[in-house]
């Protein structure tokens, strides 16, 4: 046996040592990569001109999550020419600081949606969600007819805004106070379309003086 083996033998005959060394070895890589990102994350939040989701869009984003749209659509334009040509300017970190969880996605069965806002009318979006094949005959996207009849629960929505506020996203007291009125009579479809129309919003980012 090689000389080095005797060091290993000590571990191999001792369940506790084996467990501890394993735990150390598996922790190093993650710590090295994620810790710097945490530190950097603070500076991203501070400098970006992106605003947190208003209550209606937050509700819309949660429906996007609930329906699993992220399994067919990405929201991350890569820094490659073919992508910027097709979808617009590549995505940057500061654009998704209020995405909990992120919606970058990993599969494009359908096109990227990162800069969808304003590409179509609200009416198009509604029709498309009700019956995608009425608009694009070859599409394999599911239809979402139930969204149109589903009311938004404003109490639940306010609780959700408060939760992300607790996590550090900036919402003013007035904004939260105004939420129930803004959500009055809205359907899941309204919320989802508002969310989709807000995606990318280069204008709003440009407007911001910071």
């Amino acid at each position: 046996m090689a000389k080095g083996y005797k060091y290993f033998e000590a571990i191999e005959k001792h369940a506790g040592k084996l467990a501890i060394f394993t735990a150390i070895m598996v922790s190093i890589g993650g710590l090295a990569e994620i810790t710097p990102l945490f530190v950097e994350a603070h500076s991203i939040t501070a400098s970006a001109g992106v605003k947190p989701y208003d209550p209606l869009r937050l509700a819309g984003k949660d429906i996007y999550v609930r329906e699993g749209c992220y399994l067919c659509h990405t929201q991350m334009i890569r820094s490659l020419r073919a992508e910027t040509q097709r979808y617009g300017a590549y995505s940057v970190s500061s654009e998704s600081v209020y995405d909990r969880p992120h919606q970058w996605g990993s599969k494009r069965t359908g096109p990227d949606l990162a800069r969808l806002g304003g590409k179509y009318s609200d009416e198009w979006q509604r029709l498309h969600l009700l019956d995608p094949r009425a608009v694009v005959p070859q599409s394999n996207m599911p239809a979402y007819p139930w969204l149109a009849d589903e009311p938004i629960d404003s109490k639940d929505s306010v609780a959700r805004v408060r939760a992300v506020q607790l996590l550090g996203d900036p919402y003013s007291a007035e904004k939260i106070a105004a939420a129930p009125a803004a959500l009055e009579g809205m359907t899941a479809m309204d919320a989802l379309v508002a969310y989709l129309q807000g995606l990318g919003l280069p204008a709003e980012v440009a407007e911001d003086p910071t």
Partner: protein
Amino acid sequence: MPQTETYNDQVVRLFLLAAAIWGVLGMAIGVFVAAQLAWPALNFDTPWLTFGRLRPDHTFGVIFAFGGSALMGTCYYVAQRTGHTRLALPRLANFTFWGWQLICVLAMVTMPLGLTQSKEYAEPEWLIDLLVAVVWVSFGVVFFATLARRRIKHIYVANWYYGAFIIAVGLLHIVNNIVMPVSLTKSYPVYSGTVDAMVQWWYGHNAVAFFLTAGFLGMMYYFVPRQAQQPLWSYRFSIVNFWALISVYMWAGSHHLMYTALPDWVQSVGMAFSILLLMPSWGSAANGLLTFNGAWKRVASDPAAKFMVIALVFYAAATTEGSLMAVKTVNSLSHYTDWTVAHVHSGAIGWVAMITIGSLYAMAPRALGRPAMHSRRGMEWHFWLHVTGLVMYVASMWTAGVTAGLMWRATDSSGTLIHPFIDSLIAVRPFYLIRFLGGLLIVAGMVVMAWNLWHTAADARARLIKPIPVPIPEPEPRQMPAPVPARA
């Protein structure tokens, strides 16, 4: 210790049953979502039947319900056999079985209802995550307590992998699921944007590494020598591979986020470590395959061994492909396309499912008190159904992925894009049909396996099984390398 100690195979049998059922169910859902991509009418305009809500049921069902049950069952089996000891804490072990099944049922029911965190492979909401944490810790306690009372001084290789699988998955699960609950059914993660993406893919990649790789390598290191009826090819080689694998894998998660908003240095580190990963991956595959050296004749006539050999070949192939896809220029083509799906399934159907099926065929007769599986022809049929389906799946998705990737970037001489997006979907739709047909064959094979296991379990169902005694007196304590697992 009394002379009459026996192995606790009761809980192993339960996990075996669960793995067979979840295997059929999880893959059947896979076939259904594959069909939805080919024929969208199959979404039936019904919320809980739509693709977006059912796909997580497929991934959770095959990875955690099927794979998880198989891993826990074989882990308990292997820890007893390689330690010459009875499972510690039998009541806690039973709790891990029922707890895990409860988790799987809850997750599989709530995800189609729309309760999801949308983090791939970590979709279930926070209450279920808490349950997972409790059951996982209990699993770790049973496993390490069993190691602690082993009678063989050296801890056999398979157990290192099972141990690493338990420790790492516990760690990943907890870090990735730190959330702020809003209600019983909804929560927001404390991470957002780029940090969330990195945490998620650190988790997602290492779920692949420690769930779909390390755990199943544990299975491989026990059942391959067992089925080849000769010792592992190189014991020392397995030590090197083990430490290299567990330390390198954790660095590679960022290869899921190439060219994204993730800082460049993290992407480059991920790429470098992914290429390094080739070495321990090939190392383990070679160690397993070479273990069959000199026994190839037996392999040809033993379906369980055939499953293992092909599994190892696909393990080598999927990891080679993975390292290639982690090269940034290759990833710029493969990312977001069905090429990724082809890679996933050559790992998942080729490596994970086949090593599991091979091991279950090797373990089931022993755990069920029978000399052999009920039907050898059934096993042969399963093998050919599975391999044919696998090849159809991987070849079709690979072609679809490369086709779509090339179409997305194709430009004419003036530099404008040639294809609108929908063209690429039209081009890959025929391949979705082939994938669906391949999937049908695979599920048919799983049904044959379930039928075969059911008949093999005749004695168990009639409660005629005699527990198998643990071999005592103790074997030579300074045996080295660790002994080939005891003949059951």
